[in-house]
């Protein structure tokens, strides 16, 4: 007996349906079926993940998905969701799995922060008339001025990343997402003058041509890590943690380790790809320093090294330690960050909001006088151009976007990536699904999104009278909080609106 009533219902308007069976064809979850004798479509709501593939594809707009109005007896403590989870676990005996970012009702601080604009005493600047700069360099900055014998400033620096706009595509591995999704991200990064991140699944040989715009990841599983992989990249990221599942590793089931994925990861076909929770050569901060410098040695000190950590309670102390480990950049991933698969309870209950983590790390590094030694990249989650402006004003150098990039490519945030049956061809390795994602189109959609955001960022900057994004970084006076308490304001380092 299945205790669980489907959460969503497929609503079909039979007077519109022409029984073309497109929905049936397109649904990898086999929700739709054709009843020949009645010449009529039928649906199995139990299998529906609410990914909207059928709704989008239906030529007559005959479909929509509705939240069920079937309810449990009201109970403020035992919600339907909780009860259903217990049913599921009582049935399966397993860990609840989910994907994408934490969807629960925690505060989104970005939505409680407002941006300033100039009036009278200081002119706003029109980005259509005046130059408005969004270029940034990421890497360790030194204020030491060295002059040669002739008194000229020596201009060599530690390796830097040069971005036309402070946005990068965050780590999503080949394996967790498809070949076509990777190609779209790589192409878009190249076109935009930014970077994408391979994630921990290695770099497919076809994509070395995008390596100038590629950040390669070294995670605890060390999948696909070899000399050429490291030297090809623009930067190397050591993944210590991930916002969606701080403190635990990863597990890509053997069913997905096929063909190119297995080759790229350098593990046998069909074997599970297990990333341990810690790096087994890093049990403390001094070990991290060794890995940072091994990677630098291996690449002749030509590649900046990023250390990615999850936003957890003592993120400030961790970040400070990471700076001293020799990292050039720290990527902090907030608790809303996405994932291809994570235990639900961890995704929804571990970690802290990125806005608070960012504000306190930026402050701590400044208090210690080491803020310029690293660039701060934040993600998890950045949803819009205004989130970017707020993140930069709080102190970030750059943002990572993952979910937003997937959504641009067609993801409908059904949060069912762990099934490997993504109907949008993104979080899947099934060839018939992968081919639904056309890289030529998806890449253009990514370029469009970032270009649109760039316009919006420039408009907001111009409104503040700021014509270069460097002057926005850490400029917290440009922000005000609404509906935040004293403690929240003090952590964010901003005033309340009206102050």
């Amino acid at each position, binding site marked *: 007996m299945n205790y669980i009533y489907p959460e969503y219902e497929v609503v079909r308007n039979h007077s519109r349906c022409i029984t073309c069976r497109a929905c049936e064809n397109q649904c990898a979850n086999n929700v739709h079926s054709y009843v020949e004798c009645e010449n009529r479509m039928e649906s199995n709501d139990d299998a529906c993940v609410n990914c909207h593939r059928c709704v989008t594809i239906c030529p007559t707009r005959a479909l929509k998905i509705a939240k069920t109005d079937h309810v449990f007896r009201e109970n403020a403590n035992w919600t339907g969701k909780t009860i259903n989870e217990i049913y599921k676990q009582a049935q399966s005996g397993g860990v609840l799995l989910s994907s994408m970012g934490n969807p629960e009702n925690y505060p989104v601080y970005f939505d409680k922060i407002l941006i300033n604009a100039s009036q009278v005493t200081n002119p706003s600047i029109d980005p259509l008339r005046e130059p408005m700069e969004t270029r940034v360099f990421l890497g360790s900055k030194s204020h030491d001025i060295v002059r040669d014998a002739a008194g000229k400033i020596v*201009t060599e620096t530690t390796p830097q990343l040069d971005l036309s706009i402070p946005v990068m595509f965050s780590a999503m591995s080949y394996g967790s997402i498809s070949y076509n999704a990777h190609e779209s991200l790589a192409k878009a990064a190249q076109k935009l003058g930014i970077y994408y991140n391979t994630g921990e699944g290695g770099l497919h040989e076809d994509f070395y041509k995008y390596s100038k715009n590629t950040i390669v990841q070294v995670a605890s599983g060390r999948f696909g890590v070899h000399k050429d992989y490291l030297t090809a990249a623009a930067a190397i990221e050591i993944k210590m943690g991930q916002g969606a599942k701080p403190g635990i590793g990863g597990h890509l089931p053997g069913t997905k380790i096929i063909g190119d994925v297995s080759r790229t990861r350098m593990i046998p076909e069909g074997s599970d790809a297990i990333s341990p929770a810690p790096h087994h050569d890093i049990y403390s901060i001094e070990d991290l320093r060794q890995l940072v410098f091994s990677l630098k040695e291996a690449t002749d000190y030509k590649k900046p090294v990023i250390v990615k950590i999850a936003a957890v309670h003592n993120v400030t102390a961790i970040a400070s330690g990471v700076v001293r480990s020799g990292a050039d950049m720290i990527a902090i991933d907030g608790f809303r960050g996405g994932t291809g698969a994570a235990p639900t309870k961890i995704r929804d209950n571990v970690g802290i909001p990125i806005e608070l983590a960012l504000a306190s790390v930026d402050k701590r590094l400044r208090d210690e006088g080491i803020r310029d030694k690293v660039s701060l990249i934040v993600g998890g989650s950045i949803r819009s151009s205004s989130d970017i402006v707020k993140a930069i004003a709080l102190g970030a150098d750059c943002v990572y976007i993952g979910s937003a990039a997937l959504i641009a490519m067609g993801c409908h945030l059904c949060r069912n990536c762990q099934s490997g049956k993504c109907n949008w061809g993104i979080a899947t390795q099934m060839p018939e699904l992968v081919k639904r994602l056309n890289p030529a189109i998806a890449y253009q959609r990514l370029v469009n999104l970032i270009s649109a955001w760039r316009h919006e960022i420039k408009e907001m900057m111009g409104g503040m009278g700021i014509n*270069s994004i460097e002057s926005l970084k*850490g400029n*917290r006076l440009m922000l005000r909080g609404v509906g935040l308490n004293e403690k929240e304001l003090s952590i964010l380092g901003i005033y309340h609106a009206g102050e």
Partner: protein
Amino acid sequence: MHFKEGEVRIPSGCAILGVIDKSRKRFSGEDMIRAITVMHERGNGLGGGFAGYGIYPEYKDYYAFHVFYDDASIKKQCELFLDEHFDIINLSKIPTRKMSEIKDEPLIWRYFLAPHPTKLKSSQLDEREFVAKSVFKINTTIKGAYVFSSGKNMGVFKAVGYPEDVGRFYKLEEYEGYCFTAHGRYPTNTPGWWGGAHPFALLDYSVVHNGEISSYDANRRCIEMYGYKCTLLTDTEVITYIVDYLHRKKGLDFKEIASVIAAPFWNTIVNYPDEERKKCEYLRNAFASLLITGPFSIIIGCQDGMVALNDRLKLRPMVVAEKGDKVFVSTEECAIRVIEPNLDRIWAPKGGEAVIIKLEDERL
């Protein structure tokens, strides 16, 4: 309730003026009063001031501290500190003239100081850093005492009022120097505190500024990492610290400083000859958070001369003129014409282009 400067950030518009004689020929402060008077409309009587260079030739080897005190007990407290850290060569009240236009004057004292040799040695700081640290110490720990001038052979004179009244109040006509800057302030609030008037000075660096910078908090939070404490929350204060940091501590020259704080646009830099391009990229990247955006025109005074600089979009007026050895910088041309009707040359420098006037025998 009115906030004091430092408790709230107060934007303001302003008039600025600077005159320098490159041959170090000294002239009276009287000219400055006459000239700033014609820009009366650019201030609103809530702050005015002057900086004079070469005004204390007889004490030129000593640090001249100008200090505001709220009352005599604070003065005593501060003098204890000074006595402990410096040899006090001379001290006196700064001469002023009673005027109905200038109200609520604090006690205003002047000290000529030499760092105490043993204190200096044990601090392991270089002399100027020792002095700068002492200024910060007094201004942040002795409430009611405020050192507003601390350079050698120079001095700042400022008050709440119109600048021409402030000049008369301090008897500026009795001082002679080879360089003066002046400021009339139009704050959008009534701070009513003398320390908040301009010029702002640290050691021999003084800054007068017209504008409201949009990069303020980015600049402030960056410079505070390097040992500065912004207590006034004014643009002028943060700009002075940036100049001090880049010039005194980092050894950049003023052209290099201009390419940090009013950096050329990236698409301009791209077209520079190779060496220049690399240098500008390097400086802009290394000191990214010291880029100043938003409208400003500033005049920086220092030991070696005077520098005028506009923001890179030139959102504030500023003209420069020459006559013989004299160079003039002003918000409005009319102020220059008051001093010198027949100029050899007058021009409006481009945004971001530093005009550097160095004294003969000095390198900037």
